[in-house]
C-alpha cells in the first residue's frame, strides 16, 4: 500500500460515485458501502489506487457505487479477477466484494484456492443467506430448514457452508465477522483487514429485507466475541470458535502470519533476444 502519510485525507463521501444504488431501502449493503468509504478514507487510500472487484448479485453491484477503479465481472469469479490484478499490480489496494451465493456456490472453488494462495487483498462477503438477485433461492449459507425458497420448498436439508471455518482451514490470514448495522464498527474492522498482509476474509451479515425480512432482527442476535477469543493467532483456538459459535460472534476472530503470495516482478535480462540462446543450433 502507498505510504499513508503522503496521501490526501478525503471524506468518506468522496469515495462514493455518482451512481445511485438500486438496492432495496433497508438493505444491509448500504451500511457496508458506508463502511468501505470510511475505511478507505481512514487509510487515506487514494481512489485511483484502489480497485473493487465483484461477481454477480446484489452486493456485487458495489464497485459501481464507489469512485475507485472497479470490475463487475461474471458470477463467482471475483477472486480470480482480483488475484490476477493484485499479482500484476501489487501497488494497488484490491478489495473483492460479493455475496454468499457468488462467493460460496459457483465461487467456492476460487474461494478455497484464494485462501490457500493468500494474496494481499481483502474479501468482503455480504452474507444474507439467500440469492437475492434471482428472487430468493437458498444459498450455501442458508439454514437447512428454511422453506421459503421455491426451488427447495421443503428446505435444503443439507449442511450450510461455514465460510469462516473454511477460510481458516484453507489458509486465510485474517478472519472477521461483522454486522452491516454497525457501519462504524465494520469500518474499523475493514481498516485492519486491509492493513493486514495476506488474504483478509470479512463476513458481513447483511440482511435482505425483501426475501428474508426476518433478518432485520439479526443485529439483536449477534454478540461480540469475548475479548479473550478475539484476534487470536492460534488457528486451533479460532477453529474451535468458528465451528461452535453458530455464526453469532462478531469481531476479529483470527489474525495470522501465514506467508503471503506476491511474486517479485523484477527483470533479470536486458534484451528479450537473450531468449534465443536456448533455440540456437
Amino acid at each position, binding site marked *: 500500500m502507498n505510504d499513508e502519510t503522503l496521501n490526501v485525507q478525503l471524506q*468518506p*463521501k468522496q469515495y462514493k460515485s455518482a451512481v*445511485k*444504488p*438500486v*438496492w*432495496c*431501502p*433497508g438493505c*444491509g449493503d*448500504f*451500511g457496508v458501502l458506508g463502511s468501505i468509504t*470510511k*475505511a478507505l*478514507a*481512514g487509510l487515506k487510500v487514494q481512489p485511483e489506487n484502489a480497485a473493487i472487484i465483484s461477481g*454477480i*448479485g446484489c452486493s456485487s453491484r458495489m464497485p459501481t457505487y464507489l469512485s475507485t477503479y472497479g470490475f463487475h465481472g461474471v458470477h463467482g469469479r471475483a477472486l480470480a479477477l482480483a488475484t490476477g490484478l493484485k499479482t500484476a499490480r501489487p501497488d494497488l489496494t484490491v478489495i473483492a466484494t460479493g455475496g454468499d451465493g457468488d462467493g460460496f456456490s459457483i465461487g467456492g472453488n476460487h474461494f478455497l484456492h484464494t485462501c490457500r494462495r493468500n494474496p494481499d487483498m481483502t474479501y468482503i462477503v455480504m452474507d444474507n443467506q439467500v440469492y437475492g*438477485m*434471482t*428472487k*430468493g433461492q437458498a444459498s450455501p449459507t442458508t439454514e437447512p430448514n428454511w422453506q421459503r425458497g421455491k426451488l427447495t420448498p421443503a428446505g435444503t436439508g443439507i449442511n450450510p457452508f461455514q465460510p469462516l471455518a473454511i477460510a481458516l482451514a484453507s489458509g486465510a490470514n485474517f478472519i472477521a465477522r*461483522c*454486522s452491516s*448495522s*454497525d*457501519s*462504524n*464498527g*465494520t*469500518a*474499523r*474492522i475493514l481498516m485492519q483487514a486491509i492493513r493486514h498482509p495476506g488474504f483478509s476474509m470479512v463476513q458481513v451479515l447483511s*440482511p435482505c*429485507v*425483501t*426475501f428474508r425480512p426476518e433478518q*432485520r432482527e439479526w*443485529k439483536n442476535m*449477534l*454478540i*461480540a466475541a469475548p*475479548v479473550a477469543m*478475539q*484476534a487470536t493467532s492460534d488457528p486451533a483456538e479460532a477453529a474451535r470458535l468458528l465451528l461452535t459459535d453458530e455464526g453469532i460472534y*462478531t*469481531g*476479529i476472530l483470527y489474525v495470522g502470519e501465514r506467508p503471503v503470495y506476491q511474486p517479485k516482478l523484477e527483470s533479470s535480462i536486458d534484451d528479450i533476444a537473450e531468449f534465443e540462446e536456448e533455440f540456437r543450433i
Partner: protein
Amino acid sequence: MTDNSNDPVRTIGSTEELLAYSLAMESEAVDRFNDLAEQMEVHHNYEVADLFRKLAKIEGLHIDNVNRAAEGKQLPNLLAWEYQWQGGESPEGGLMEEAHYLMQPWHAIELAMHGEMRAAAFYRHVAETAVDDNVLKMALELVAEEDEHVALLQKWQKRFPKPAEGWDEDLDPPAMLE
C-alpha cells in the same frame, strides 16, 4: 452488535469532546437523511423523499446550533468511525435499516423519531457517567433538546395517517435483474 474491538469505552471528559460527538451525530444524520431521500427517489416514493430532504435540512440546523455552541472552542478532530458509541453503532447510524420502498410519511417520521430517541439515550448516558460538571450540564441540555425534537416529530407525525395493515403489500413480485 460489534463492539469497539478491544478499546475500553471512554467517558467523555470535556465539553469540547461532547460537542464533537454531537457534531458527528448531526452530520451523520444529515448524510443518512440525504441517502434515504436518494433511495426514495430511486424507488419513486417522492412524497417520502421530500420529507427526508426536509429532515436533512432540520438536522443541518442542529449542526448550526452545535457550531455556535462550539465557537471559540477547539474540538478534537475525530473521524466518523473513531467515535465510540455506547453499544456500538452511532445513534443516527441505524436510520437506514428501517427504510422500506413503500414507506409512508408516518413511517419516515417514526424513523426520525427513533433516531432522536437514540440520541437522547446517548446524552442521558453521558450525563449519568459524567465526571466533569460542565459536561454534565451540557449533556442535560442536549437531552432536553433531543426530547424536544422527539415532541416536535410526534406533533408532525399526527398530520399523517397511521398506515393501515397491508401498507407494504406490492401486487407485483420482485424483479429479477441478473
